[in-house]
């Protein structure tokens, strides 16, 4: 009998989607790697074109920081809600977990609304100049991810309300939560590039 066979043939093993032992957890990590690359290339395109242009950059002058900064804080706060929801479900506190998810969805939706207002107030559009094309494409890609992320959070909320998860089986929340955290963290990069970097690089 070989060593590997003897290792654990009599040990009980978790069955099915057990937290970070689930294949879904590994799958979402791989997906995040490729999505992060996508945003990396978007920002590469932004900095490449910014470095090559002969115009002043951004052409409309430096962006206002107050509203986007508040909005960034709102989005990061929503991550805390998801984090809490996962913690509570692990402790078997379903009501608190639901509250965490509801808070996250509310904050995430506020981010979307504020961002839409921000878009409306811009004096340029996606076709007016190169900067406009970049700004709306990059933030548009991110918006798309936020909307999909909100859909995932709503599904997690429905499933939690249906009593699908308890302290020992809640891989879906871990996996969906990881995606939401990714969407929030990648915004920090988008925010730094589009809003902060023009102040630093002139």
């Amino acid at each position, binding site marked *: *009998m*070989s*060593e*590997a*066979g003897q*290792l*654990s*043939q*009599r*040990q*009980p*093993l*978790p*069955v*099915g*989607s*057990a937290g970070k*032992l*689930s*294949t879904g957890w*590994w*799958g979402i990590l*791989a*997906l995040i*790697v*490729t*999505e992060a*690359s*996508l945003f*990396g*290339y*978007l920002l*590469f*395109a932004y900095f*490449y*074109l910014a470095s*090559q*242009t*002969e*115009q002043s950059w951004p052409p409309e002058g430096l962006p206002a920081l107050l509203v986007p900064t508040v909005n960034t804080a709102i989005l990061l706060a929503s991550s805390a809600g998801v984090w809490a929801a996962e913690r509570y479900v692990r402790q078997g506190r379903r009501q608190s977990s639901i509250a965490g998810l509801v808070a996250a969805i509310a904050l995430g939706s506020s981010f979307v609304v504020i961002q839409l207002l921000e878009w409306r107030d811009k004096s340029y559009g*996606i*076709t007016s*100049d*190169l900067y406009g*094309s*970049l700004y709306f*494409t990059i933030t548009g890609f991110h918006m798309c991810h936020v909307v999909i992320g909100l*859909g995932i959070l709503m*599904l997690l909320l429905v*499933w939690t309300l*249906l*009593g*699908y*998860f*308890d302290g*020992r*089986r809640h*891989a*879906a929340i871990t996996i969906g939560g990881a995606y939401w955290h990714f969407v929030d963290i990648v915004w920090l990069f988008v925010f730094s590039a589009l809003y902060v970097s023009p102040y630093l690089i002139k």
Partner: protein
Amino acid sequence: MAIADITQRPINDDLDRVPDFGRAPSGSDIEANLTGIWETAPGWRGWLSTVDHKTIGLRYIVTAFLFLLIGGIEALIMRVQLAGPDLTLLTPEQYSQLFTMHGVTMIFLYALPILSGFSNYLWPLLLGSRDMAFPRLNALSYWIFLFAGIFMYVSFPLGQAPNAGWFNYVPFSGPIYNTGPNIDVFALGMVLLGISTTVGSVNFVVTLFRMRAPGMTINRVPILVWGTLTASVANLLAIPAISLAFFLLWLDRQFGTHFFDVANDGKPLLWQHLFWIFGHPWVYAIVLPAMGIVSDALPTFCRRPLVGYTAVALATMATMLIGFEVWIHHMFATGLPAVALSIFGAASMVISIPSAVAVFAWIATIWLGRPVFKTPFLFFAGFVILFVIGGMSGVMTAAVPLDWQLNDTYFIVAHLHYVLLGINVFPVVGGIYYWFPKFTGRMMSERIGKWSFWVMFTGFNVGFFPMHLAGLLGMPRRIYTYSSRMGWDGVNMITSVGSFLFALGVLIFLVNVVISLKRGALAGPNPWDAATLEWTTSSPPPAYNFAVIPTVASRHPLWEDRLEEDSGDNRARSNFTEGYLLTKGRETIGTSPIDAKPVAILKMPDDSYTPFFSGLFLSLLFAGLLLHWWSFTAGMAIAGGITLIIWMWPQKALVQRIAAGRGP
């Protein structure tokens, strides 16, 4: 055992279990039970819903091979046009569409998909698992590949096929110079195909880390697995670059954005950067798994293990790592600063070091072994020769001044065909000869096989070697005809003759496939006396692959008796007759990433229609984008979203949720 658990924890529903361990002799109830659990329903229902990696793998191989034939026919038509000077078989526009579709078909619709086919079929068998990590994702990946292939060909019969070359440089492919639907079809088709490649790559990466047989530690996995793993990781990092490039181009063309718009400060070089940041890793993605095929199959015919397993595995990853730092060698002639050219030229030369490591390992394996000159061996040995020739011309063009001379000439065409046919097509055909008995249960004819090799090998060299000379004589690539005063008549005629000879060789191979499918000698489980796990199971394998999950103790589980070095110290032996049985629904064992210790019982999904419909709705969504049918597009997005929700809905059978109310 189970009783003790139940008394300790009364609510031990089915979240933890001691897996059954034992034997499943052939003809036993356990086997019959497993067949019932794993087999796909007959008829069209099973056809649309199957998630069996073996079926999907064969579909990939057959579909990709059909694309190879289509791309080949396009090449032959071009070779007729170029056989002599001033021929008028094709108009310039037709010629542009043909060489574009030839490149697109071969590089995107054949070269990687065929390797995905091999890996899909073989990985679980090589790794001792019952399926890939995400069987439904696997099916989705195939369906999107098929639909994307069809998508990219829809405008071909209308004479509106992509026409700007497979790397599709702006501004020629931009809205001003290319007004038809040609490029939009290409752009959206590539984004769609990118989704297929991405989900396929996720599947391979997770499968490697989670689905190996107990005992198959990371230093015991076959090289093919290393090759596909490396390619898949690279794809995860590189595919977004090209998907983004094509998406931005589509925005430029359809909505008037300015990314590549020179008049408004857009930069055509951004396209080249994004394309080649993807393009060069992709070149390695479409050869490394094929090199893995050779590294695994060649030793079987040398009757000894591969020389330098560790070196070859590391060289595989080193090649890809450096492969991410050479993309600018496609852009030497674009006026970039000399520093950039020097660095990327040097990196391009450095990459020959890991390639040489692999080449010398194969040569040493042949040298130190006792070669058996069966057909697969011929293809693998032929591959080594062609790789060396293609590698040499690659090192030559890595030198910046020489590249300036040779850029956009037939020398480059010769180089890339030596590399891509040499490293991809020859191992693939050899691999089909090698695994055909596993796929079908029958051997391929040796006699016809040897003919197919020699005709293909001769035809290939007669066809492609003179292209080097045409390039040195200054013949630019992608011209639809030439004047006889240029002095290119002879080399072109020889090339055209060689290309038809090569095609004849492929035809002989296909005849062999058809004949052998019907009349080939029956193959046992291990007709080649090979060393790896796929040969422990019957040919073709049962739906569940292994009745007993094997336990692996070495790199060459089937050769342990005769290889002293693997068994000298601890006398460990792989075990194929006794192991985990896992018969409570579709199950396989999940192991730890490095040591392959069992850590979980993985519940595998049943056959499902959701992959087919997700793929269909997604593809129709892209058709809607192409045609500007916005409400149709929105409808397809909603339909696709609903399908995905059904797919993702946590299932009790997969233990993705608790069994509410303590039901079964």
